[in-house]
């Protein structure tokens, strides 16, 4: 069966450090992968999108890698801040850009 797995345990890091979150998938051939941020009681907000033929994408303090051989994406937040504390979700889309499926999400806690 198709699965998108993220670490269910919360990631605790200190302010200023780099946070690295993992997204692994099985039985998918996604055309592209996205990362979203979700705050409690709110809907997810888009952060970054990376295509299957791209290895890396950057936006300000965010970096995403996409390894279709390993079936894995890594999401990095450099110089993390307490305001970065939230749940981060990865999402995959098929070639037709229609069906959008989310992973389980990882909660990030950044301590001052």
């Amino acid at each position: 069966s198709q699965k998108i797995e993220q670490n269910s345990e919360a990631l605790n890091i200190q302010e200023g450090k780099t946070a690295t979150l993992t997204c692994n998938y099985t039985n998918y051939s996604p055309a592209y992968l996205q990362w979203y941020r979700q705050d409690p009681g709110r809907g997810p907000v888009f952060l970054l999108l990376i295509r299957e033929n791209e290895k890396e994408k950057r936006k300000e303090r965010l970096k995403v890698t996409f390894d279709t051989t390993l079936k894995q994406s890594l999401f990095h937040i450099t110089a993390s801040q307490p305001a970065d504390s939230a749940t981060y979700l990865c999402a995959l889309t098929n070639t037709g850009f229609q069906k959008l499926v989310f992973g389980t999400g990882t909660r990030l806690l950044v301590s001052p």
Partner: protein
Amino acid sequence: SQTIHQWPATLVQPVGSPLSLECTVEGTSNPNLYWYRQAAGRGLQLLFYSVGIGQISSEVPQNLSASRPQDRQFILSSKKLLLSDSGFYLCAWSGQGSPTEAFFGQGTRLTVV
């Protein structure tokens, strides 16, 4: 600019009662539309998605149904709610034909009692 409206924000319903959640999008045409459910502390479960009027794809067999009577209107329904239908329901839209981000509504917190 595009906006998405979802209501109500919270809902408490007795077991066996019907459900109707509505979502509308403004400022775009022919969007992909989605309904997700999120249990407490869990990820988003895709329930239904639609690529056009009257076209509904169901992802999870369950006590719910969806309809798209107009291009920018997506409705989630149930004839008889179960306790297990409780959760946070989110509507979202994305553009068609190219990889684009999804935009989410404010969500509906449904508690079935």
